């Protein structure tokens, strides 16, 4: 049975924790809004880019001499997995869900006899994967100093991916990140970026004049398309992280509140028990006289 003083200290400590989680929740809410705005602002560019590339790609994909970024290397042997996670913890299952999806994919690829290479972005996922798949790591991108995710960050990552591709290090590249749906729901997503895939190929390609040539534009756009997709993934991930943190901290705040109530009841009970005990001692002492 803890003493009254112990209980009091305990209550105070839980109250302090609650203040911190509450503050973190509010900070995450503010950051989430900014992250969502950034994702919103980036959407027109990504959409136009995909539309134009899709239209061009549908024309070029079947012709011989299509760019390697679109047609692939012709092999399907070495897979590069770009796993994007957060730099900080305390965001609920955010990183775990991405890592779980990545693990499943890695196991599947290894079982199929493929070679796996892992490029990690954000240190949390790296920590989780190191024990089982550390031998497949080929690189890491550290974004811990980045305050605001900019396009230049995405370009840096894209350049790293592309230079490895040009060096013939892999055949297929896939991005792993969390797609933001709502504060309580983020969907772990795997998106193949090399060779490039387009969901709906438009038929607009015949309507346009191209300068320089159709192939020239496509060759110029494909590397930019990779950067754009990386950027979209980074922004989605950023918003997801803040959303996940916000709901995790909301839960933590509520749990702390419940705990404080329980501890307060226990504290009051113990206090009353102590008073009753003292009264009984006084009364029985007086009766003995």
């Amino acid at each position, binding site marked *: 049975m803890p003493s009254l003083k112990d209980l009091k200290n305990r209550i105070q400590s839980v109250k302090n924790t609650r203040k911190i989680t509450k503050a973190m929740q509010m900070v995450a809410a503010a950051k989430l809004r900014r992250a969502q705005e950034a994702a919103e*602002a980036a959407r027109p*560019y990504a959409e136009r880019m995909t539309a*134009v590339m899709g239209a061009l790609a549908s024309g070029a994909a079947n012709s011989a001499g299509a760019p390697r970024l679109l047609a692939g290397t012709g092999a399907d042997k070495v897979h590069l997995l770009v796993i994007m996670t957060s730099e900080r913890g305390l965001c609920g299952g955010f990183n775990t869900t991405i890592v779980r999806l990545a693990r499943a994919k890695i196991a599947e690829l290894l079982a199929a006899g493929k070679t796996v290479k892992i490029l990690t972005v954000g240190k949390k996922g790296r920590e989780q994967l190191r024990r089982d798949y550390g031998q497949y790591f080929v690189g890491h991108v550290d974004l811990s100093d980045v305050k605001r995710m900019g*396009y230049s960050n995405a370009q840096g990552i894209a350049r790293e991916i592309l230079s490895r591709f*040009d060096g013939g290090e892999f055949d297929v590249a896939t991005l792993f990140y969390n797609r933001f749906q709502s504060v309580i729901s983020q969907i772990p997503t795997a998106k193949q970026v090399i060779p490039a895939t387009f969901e709906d190929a438009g038929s607009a390609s015949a309507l*346009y004049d191209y*300068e*320089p040539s159709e192939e020239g*534009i496509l060759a110029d756009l494909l590397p930019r398309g990779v950067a754009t997709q990386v*950027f979209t993934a980074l922004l989605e991930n950023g918003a997801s992280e803040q959303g996940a943190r916000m709901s995790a901290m909301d839960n933590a705040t509520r749990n702390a509140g419940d705990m404080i109530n329980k501890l307060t009841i226990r504290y009051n009970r113990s206090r009353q028990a102590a008073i009753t005990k003292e009264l009984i001692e006084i009364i029985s002492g007086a009766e003995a006289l």
Partner: protein
Amino acid sequence: MAGTMQFDLVSPERKLASAAATEVMIPGAEGDMTAMEGHSPTITTLRPGVLRAVTTEGVKSYVVTGGFAEISATGVTVLAERAIPVEEATGTVLDDILAEARSLAAAALPEDKNAAEKAVNDVMALRDAVLAHH
């Protein structure tokens, strides 16, 4: 007075401009072109240069690098990897862009060497033009 068309300038991070314009001068990869209402549909890549738009709110110029422009009879959409209003493009900003283009050229594969070096030259021309403008 020519009719107007919708002019949009977007960079990956935000939408920079959206206005009705009468003419837009685009630094295309194979030379400058001016798009006006009724232009035949064209897609062109950009070289580093100055994009000039005559809008209903006045003439606006932007320094753009990389990307492409989509021209149709009723509008122009420019997707630039980087777009800066010309007033904000100071010497240091341009030097950064130039340094970046140079480092890319140095790292480029042999077959991309020519394109990368052309980009450096384009940036240098752009820099001189903008600094003269200031």
